[in-house]
């Protein structure tokens, strides 16, 4: 752990040393990428000890539906049963590269002290951005979280634009930017790591009508972080 991360942890300890209490806050979500779109975001405050996913653990069926096809209804239902404070689809659709959206949450009267934000990256097979169960600060202020792309581990990253978005159906459901190619032969078989892990990035190629991938290596790659979440506590 580097010095600045230790400092951050120390700061977090200070900030969370208070008893859990209600928070009225705004969540701004920035798509930092140059060529990746996000499916509708799911933003949720939820109780301590709960999470939608964990690195090194297999994805739930509902996480798989989000990561492979952008369907957040199952995860939202899971969160409802936990009594979570939920905001679905704050952008009212896809979030384009280098754009942002925001939503207000208020956890008054709840025990929802953790924040999770998830959405699928397009065009990918099963990549998703995940801010995973971070403690919601209670001190008024602005807090920035930088969010990496995970691989749900549930689908081969074949990078073929087939329209397949349902869980278990191979292929990429859509390329909103319209810059993908066709005729790829398929990049990869099943992930070596079938649990949730940091995504290894798309490969792509420079052949719009063939090659292994339908993705363009000059357009559809990314570097982490892919999303910035700015929490403003009032």
């Amino acid at each position, binding site marked *: 752990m580097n*010095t*600045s*991360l230790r*400092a*951050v*942890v*120390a*700061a*977090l300890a*200070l*900030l969370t040393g208070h008893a859990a209490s209600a928070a009225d806050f705004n969540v701004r979500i*920035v798509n*930092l*990428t*140059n*060529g990746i779109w996000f499916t509708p975001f799911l933003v949720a405050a939820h109780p301590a000890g709960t999470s939608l996913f964990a*690195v090194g653990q297999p994805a739930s069926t509902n996480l798989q539906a989000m990561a492979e096809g952008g369907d957040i209804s199952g995860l939202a239902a899971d969160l409802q049963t936990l009594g979570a404070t939920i905001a679905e689809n704050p952008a009212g659709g896809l979030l384009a*590269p*280098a*754009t*942002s959206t925001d939503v207000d949450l208020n956890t008054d009267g709840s025990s929802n002290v953790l924040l999770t934000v998830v959405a699928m990256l397009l065009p990918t097979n099963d990549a998703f951005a*995940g*801010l*995973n*169960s*971070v*403690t919601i*600060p209670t*001190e008024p*202020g*602005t*807090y*920035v*979280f*930088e*969010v*990496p792309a*995970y691989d749900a581990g549930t689908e081969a990253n074949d990078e073929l634009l087939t329209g397949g978005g349902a869980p278990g159906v191979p292929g990429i459901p859509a390329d909103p930017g319209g810059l993908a190619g066709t005729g790829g032969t398929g990049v990869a078989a099943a992930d070596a790591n079938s649990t949730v892990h*940091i995504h290894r990035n798309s490969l792509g*190629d*420079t052949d719009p009508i063939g090659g292994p991938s339908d993705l363009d*290596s*000059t*357009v559809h*790659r*990314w*570097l*982490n*972080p*892919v999303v*910035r979440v700015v929490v403003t506590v009032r």
Partner: protein
Amino acid sequence: MINLSTTMSRALLLIPGVLLLQACGGSNGSGPPAQPTTASFAVTVSNLTNAQPLSPVAVIAHADGYRIFAVGTAASVGLEELAEGGDNTALLAEAAAAPQVAATASGAAPIGPAGSEVVSIEVLETELPGLQLSVGTMLVNTNDAFSGANAALVGDMAVGDELSFYSIAYDAGTEADTERALEIPGPAGGGEGFNPARDDQADRVAMHAGVVSQDDGLATSDLSEQERFDNPVVRIRIERVN
């Protein structure tokens, strides 16, 4: 407890107990020498990359409201000249003309991989409340990648306090990422720097997606796998020295 898969940066600036430094009053007219009326910061920029020299850095001290860049917003011409050609002159001139800007400073030379440079910048103590520092530098073996710091809050740092953070690579959105030597000013290219044409995917700042390189299948690229990079690309340490 922080999730190791995320980072939290600005929280550093909000640690309770960091007191707002008040400007010291004037002397009593006798006795000890007058208090200094300026505050200075040493900004250390370290290059973390394998083969991406950094252009001479631009350091700008300013009040809230000035930004070198914002994700989703078109780059200024000054930022374009920095990000395409590694020349910070126009960016610093733009800054000097902005009403929020208190001071500017330039690095003396490019910073090679594994290298660091300390740039000093000085402001009046009266300008400290809310003072922010921004830093810009180009990754010169690219078309228009840059890094730096965006409005780090330093006005409440006491003498001796330091603030360190890592920074990522952004794409100015002003030049297509051809990776061709003709359009890359750094040593891996030796080509053109700034060109006023804007021919990137979209005319706005976003994150850089990295160098593909000829070794990774981009046949038209003059860059090798050595010029690839991942985040973070730069470490910045700010110390208030007086």
